[in-house]
Each structure stands twice: as C-alpha cells, then as structure tokens.
C-alpha cells in the first residue's frame, strides 16, 4: 500500500499536476490576442517586460502594493498561508528523503522545527481565511461552496501531516491520509481555481504588460500598484 501510493500513484499525481499546469500556461499564451486584448504584446518589449516584472514583484512582496498595505490583517494571514504552503512541502526533510530514495533527486531540506512552525502557520491562516469568508459580508457574498472545498483540499495535507508528525492518534493512518490528500491536491490543481499557482503569474504578467505597453507605462515611471 505504502509502496503503491508513494510510487506509481505519486508519479501519476505529479504527472497530472505538471502536465496540467503546462497546458494551462500554453493555452493561456496561445489565447492571447493583440487585437481582442488590445495590447501590442510585441512592441515596446522593454517597457512591457519591465512592467510585467514589477507587476509580479510588488505583489509577491508583503506590503509591496497599496492593496496589501490597506489590508494589513488580511495580508498577514495571506502570507502566512502561502509562504507555509509553498515552502514547507518543497523543503521538508521527509520529502527530500523520498525524492532521493525514489528518483535520486536531491533537494535541500530545512530543520523539522521550522517546517512544523510553518505548518502550524498554514493551519492558523486557513482558519483565518475561513472565518473571513464566513464573517465579512462582502466576502461571504462572493463565496461559493467550491471556494470552501478548495480551501479544505489545500489544507488537508498540512493538517494530516501535523497529526502524523506530532503522533496524535494513529500515525500510519495520518501518514497515509497525508499522502493521499497531498496527491489529491496535486491532481486537483489543474481542474480547480488552484490553477492560480501558474495562472497568477500569467495574469499578472499580462496586466503588467497592458499597463506597461499601452496604459501609460511608456509615459510614466511605472505603474503604482
């Protein structure tokens, strides 16, 4: 069982994840249309690229944009969630062991305490996001069951990992649940809003180029996001 879900099934999940993400990006780029989008993607390349990088960069930095600064609490929750969610699985020692053992890929690992803190951070932040969805009227009004579902889907691997690591209850059960929920997450990415893992970059590059090439970027010192 363990062999299977950390072997072929993991392979399959990763394949779906990577191929799905690749297809999303490819379709996105293929669907860009200079006339329909009204952006001359191929002219003013320098200001376009500059604006695209700015558009991603400022939004990745905590409090880098006016929107982040105006919503400090949300921003903290948001970064707590995303930093933990991205960094922990990539640099967890248990993961790097599997990677090395299975496929001979070397990944640097971080100390387990750090991973533990980050995981706890993800869980706390997820609660914050959920509460916000339920309590803030304008957010509640936007929320669909899918949004809640996706949140649970992305938190499940962390919750189960936390249980397993702290040996609360049956470790084998939590470990298996962790692996399966992680795989479910990977598979879900291309088919849900989780595709924003790649589409965030596509969309931000696109709108950056829009403002950089067409809407003032050439005439001003860069868009003040």
């Amino acid at each position, binding site marked *: 069982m363990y062999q299977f879900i950390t072997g072929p099934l993991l392979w399959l999940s990763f394949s779906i994840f990577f191929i799905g993400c690749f297809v999303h990006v490819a*379709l*996105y*780029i*293929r*669907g*860009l*249309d*200079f*006339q*329909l*989008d*009204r*952006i*001359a993607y*191929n*002219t003013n390349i320098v200001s376009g690229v500059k604006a695209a990088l700015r*558009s991603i960069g400022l*939004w990745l930095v905590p409090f880098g944009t*006016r*929107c982040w600064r*105006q*919503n400090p609490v*949300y921003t903290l929750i948001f970064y707590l969630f995303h930093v933990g969610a991205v960094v922990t699985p990539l640099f967890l020692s248990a993961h790097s062991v599997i990677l090395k053992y299975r496929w001979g890929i070397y990944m640097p690992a971080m100390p387990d305490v750090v991973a533990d803190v980050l995981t706890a951070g993800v869980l706390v932040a997820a609660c914050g996001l959920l509460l916000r969805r339920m309590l*803030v*009227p*304008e*957010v*509640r*009004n*936007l*929320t*669909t069951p899918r*949004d809640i579902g996706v949140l649970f889907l992305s938190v499940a691997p962390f919750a189960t990992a936390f249980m397993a690591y702290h040996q609360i209850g049956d470790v084998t059960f939590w470990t298996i649940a962790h692996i399966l929920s992680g795989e479910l997450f990977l598979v879900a990415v291309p088919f849900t*809003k989780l*595709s*924003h893992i790649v*589409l*965030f970059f*596509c*969309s*931000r590059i*696109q*709108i*950056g180029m*829009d403002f950089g*090439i*067409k*809407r*003032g*970027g*050439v*005439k*001003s*010192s860069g*868009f*003040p*996001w």
Partner: protein
Amino acid sequence: MQQGKLCNRIPVETKDKLKEILGDKGGIQYYKEMESLEVDVPALKDLLKRTLKSRLKTWLNSCMRCGLCADSCFLYIANDKDPKQVPSYKIQSTLGELVRRKGEVDTQFMMHCMDVAWAQCTCCNRCTMYCPMGIDTGVMFSYLRGILFSQGFVPWEMKIGSGMHRVYRAQMDITTEDWVDTCEWMEEETEEEWPGLKIPVDKENADIIYTVNAREAKHYPEDLADAAILFHLAGENWTVPSEGWEETSLAMFAGDWEAAKLQVKSVYSAIERLKPKRMVVTECGHAYRATVTEGPYWAGIKSGKPPVDSLHYVEWVAEALRTGKLKIDPAKRIKEPVTFQDSCNYIRNAGLADDARYIMSQIAEDFREMKPNREHNYCCGGGGGLNGIGRYRQERNIGLKVKRDQILETGAKLVISPCHNCWDALRDLEEVYKIGIRWSFLKPILIKMVVVPDHLKLSAE
C-alpha cells in the same frame, strides 16, 4: 426572433432612424420594447466562441473571491458597502453567469446585465489596481457591453450615441459644413482681439493637428476659440481637419465596436491626409482613451499606436510651459485653494499624472491633492457613459457622493477638470449636493494668466 421597432439588434445607421429613435423621448417606448426583445442565443454563443479568449476566461475562472477589490470601487463605497456592489460580484453575476450558462440566457437576464453594466460600473479600472490576480473588471464590463450591444440590450442614449457616430462620425449631429462654419465663426470672433489669429482648416504638414469633442463644436464653441488663442500665443503651427475632427466615442461606451472603429479611422485618415507631425487632443478623457489608447487596436494597427505621436491637452500644456512656449504671469496665478480631478482615462489609464501636477505647480499657489489621487483617484462618478443615461440618474447621483466628500476634504472651492465627462459630473454634483464649488477646464484659466508676447499684443490704443 422578436425584435422591436426601436429596440432591436440593428444599429442605427441612417438619419431617418436616428430621428425616429430620438423622437421617442426618454426612450419610453424603447425600453418597453426591450422587455420583449428576444435573445439570439446562437449568435451569442458564436460571439462568445470568437471573442472570449484566455485573458477573459482566466479573469473569470481565477477570481479568488477574496473581496479585496471591494473597497476600491467608488460605487461600493457610495452605496454603503453593499456587497452587491463588489466588482467581483458584479461581473460574476453577469458576464460570469452568462458564460457559465454558455449563452443560454433570456431577456430578463440580459436586461439585468444591462442595468449592471451601465449603472454599476463606469469602466474606471480602479479595481484592477487592487486585485492580486490582476483582474480588470472594468475591461470585462466593457466586453460585456459589447455583447449586450450586439443583442440590442443597450441604454437608449447609448444606442443613439453610437448611431450618431455611424451617421455623422461624431457623437452629435454635426456635419462637416457645421464644423467648418464653427471654425470660421470662432476665428472671426477672436481675430479682433488677437490680430493674426487663424483657425487653419485642413492645412497640410502642420506641426499639430488638433481634434476636439463634438460638444465643444456644438455647445461650447468658445472652447475652440480658447484653444486657438493658446496655440497662437505659443506660436504653434497647427490645424484642424475638416473631417475626422471628432475624438470622442460614445460608441466605446455603448460597446459598438464597429462604430468605434469607423470613428477612429476617420481621425486616422485625417492624419494621413494632412500629414501633421503630432496630434493634440482637447480636454477630454474618454476621447483620448478612445482615439489614442484603444483606437489603434480597433483599427488593427499592429504597433498599437496612432499614426502620429498623440498628446492629451494636459501633455501639450505641460510641454508648452516647460519649454517656455507659454509663460505664466506669477502675479496672476490662482491664489485660492484649488484641487485637480484626475481623470481615469488619461491619468490611470495613460500615465499623465506628472504632467497634471506640473501644470498645477505653475498655475496655482495653493494646490491641494484629493485623497486618494493620481492613478488611485476615484472616478468622478459619471464615467463610462453613466452621466448621460436618464434611466440611471439616481444611481449616478448616489455615486457622486464619493467625489463630493473627496473635494470637501481638500477645502478647495475650485476644481480643475480637463475632462468633459468629469466636468459634467462636477456640474451635476454641485446641482445635486450644493457644496458651493466651481469647476473649470484648463483653457479659460490659462488664458487669464499667460504672458502675451509683445509682438502679439493689440497695438497700443
């Protein structure tokens, strides 16, 4: 499929049709007919298939429903934070729903979409700046307007406006003759005070081709005279085209992309005919947006640029002040507190905030910024055509509250507004809320304070 006599899927293309629909005062019959206007679902599906590409799809599907865009929308603020006014909600419940239903929608749904697309969004694009995903709800609403127009679900005034462009290549019924007459008339009026002043029509190879807003030609011809005086004082070699002089585009507000294209092409062909070095656009925000920012794409120009370098009026003024072509008499600068209305169309969507600041630093002693300002400024409240639609007067007036409070906070009683739409909104704001403000374009202010070079002075009496 049932269509009305006035309210239908066919754009207005003749003078007779224009007269007919204008005769239906306030669009009473028009809106009545709309209630039984059937949706051409196959055409709608086809349009979606052809035009809903990856950018729009991603915007619709990747909205995280985080609500961060809520506070960015002035209509959300003006309506006491009504969750139904959150940009994401507005677009998801209209265009989003339409796409999810794959175009299988009915009359009632389309009318609802119309009411949201024109009364709940001015396409000011402010929310774009606050969305982590880079979603531009204003652009999506503009796209939705195009869909609605193609199906005939468009406010009465917008249908007329786009018809005007189709018939007259102007947003009003002004013929080439009317326009040339106005130029001559204004030349005569001003010549007396300004000897040697000309309004040169169709002069080839000028340095500047100047294009206007039809309202100036029809209702405020003095604006043309003012522009002429300032060009005269600056020593510019300029001209106006007899045809292709109209910069504005109600067609853009209406979502009539075909008419929008016809309109900008008329300007571009004037440029090709007269071969000026540059174009200067009058003090109008959406005109600049239409003809300089978006127009090249409608016309299919690959570089995305109009045929010649094109300046909004604030760019020209800033340049003239910087180079000393126009000089301000320091004693005549505005003494009282004064603020500036940043127009979304050439500030947020064209990057001219610095030019506006430079001008204010030259003409005013006590310039006060609104908060927020520059690219982050709120819409005046009447953008995207909203000012002109009777059906949504109430919604527009509520929206004006945000600008009212912004102005009150500056303590200024004078608002400089180099944009026709904003200017109108400010006028209506004063009419509705009576806060005791005055508002002005740049030209009349500048004329009062520029230094007249000796050789242009009226010979001493």
